[in-house]
């Protein structure tokens, strides 16, 4: 018997690459155009129910740490004062404030730590960035060894606004 070897010619199926590449490029362009680089943002929490702003609440036994920020007419920082002690108006003023609050708060096992509150009393025209620096200086510091945030005071509030001419 004669075996007939039926030779089937190997047909190479070539996938159509062109449409896929088209779609892939469309996707690439879409993602490139919709990409929006947003800088990382963080925040500082402030709890201020109505009635706590104007005067000190009689329920709070410990008086708040008062931080006074004065401004020059152009809104730049004129001075930082904590409990009547001037801390200057240079770049190191907020570092000094941080150290002062740190001394006041003391050790982490301070029993009054949770009740401590900072009141920021700023001039009306003071640039907001100085207030953020003050809030940051009062609430803690970043441990340079491991980058962790060590918190001093969680509660921050604002004094009533000092409207010009009042």
């Amino acid at each position, binding site marked *: 018997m004669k075996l007939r070897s039926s030779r089937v010619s190997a047909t190479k199926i070539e996938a159509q690459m062109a449409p896929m590449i088209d779609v892939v490029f469309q996707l690439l362009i879409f993602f490139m155009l919709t990409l929006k680089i947003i800088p990382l943002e963080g*925040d*500082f929490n402030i*709890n*201020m*129910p109505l009635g706590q702003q104007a005067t000190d609440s009689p329920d709070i036994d410990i008086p708040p740490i008062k931080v006074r920020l004065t401004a020059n007419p152009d809104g730049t920082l004129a001075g930082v004062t904590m409990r009547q002690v001037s801390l200057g108006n240079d770049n190191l003023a907020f570092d000094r404030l941080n150290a002062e609050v740190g001394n006041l708060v003391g050790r982490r096992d301070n029993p009054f730590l949770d009740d401590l509150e900072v009141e920021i009393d700023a001039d009306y025209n003071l640039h907001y960035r100085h207030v953020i620096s003050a809030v940051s200086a009062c609430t803690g510091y970043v441990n340079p060894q491991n980058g962790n945030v060590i918190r001093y005071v969680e509660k921050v509030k604002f004094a009533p606004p000092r409207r010009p001419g009042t």
Partner: protein
Amino acid sequence: MRYKKTASTVLEPDMTPMIDVVFQLIAFFMLVTNFEQTQADERVKLPSDQLARPPEAARDKVLVVNIGFNRNKQGEKTDPEAYIFEGDELIPVLDYGRRLLEEKRVAQALYGPEGNQEMTIEIRADSETPTGLIQELIKLSQENGFEKFSLRAKQLVK
């Protein structure tokens, strides 16, 4: 005269490396693209601070208020007055009380009678905004029953 038949040679470039690279690029852009509907306004130049850290848990009841100045392309102020940006609308900060009242009603309709107290007012203010205006905004918010505030800042990495 006889012509010699030469087999037509079609040059097929190897597409594999290119497709590999393109897929890598797509994967990269897909990962870095943020589709979250942020209400951040690009006109606001936030102050930066080392201690500004993102909240551990994302807040679900938030009202974002963007306060800033009209600036030109060079970033210089074209108007010394600070406004609250709501899309293309510019609202003077002291006139924002009416809008807060509307927000209070919406919060109460959505989350119950104490919905406004559970809401956090996220203040995104330009670094040169007069502090008094921020205090006025906080005061207006308090008058409408809002108690929680968060002051946004860019995270400064040293």
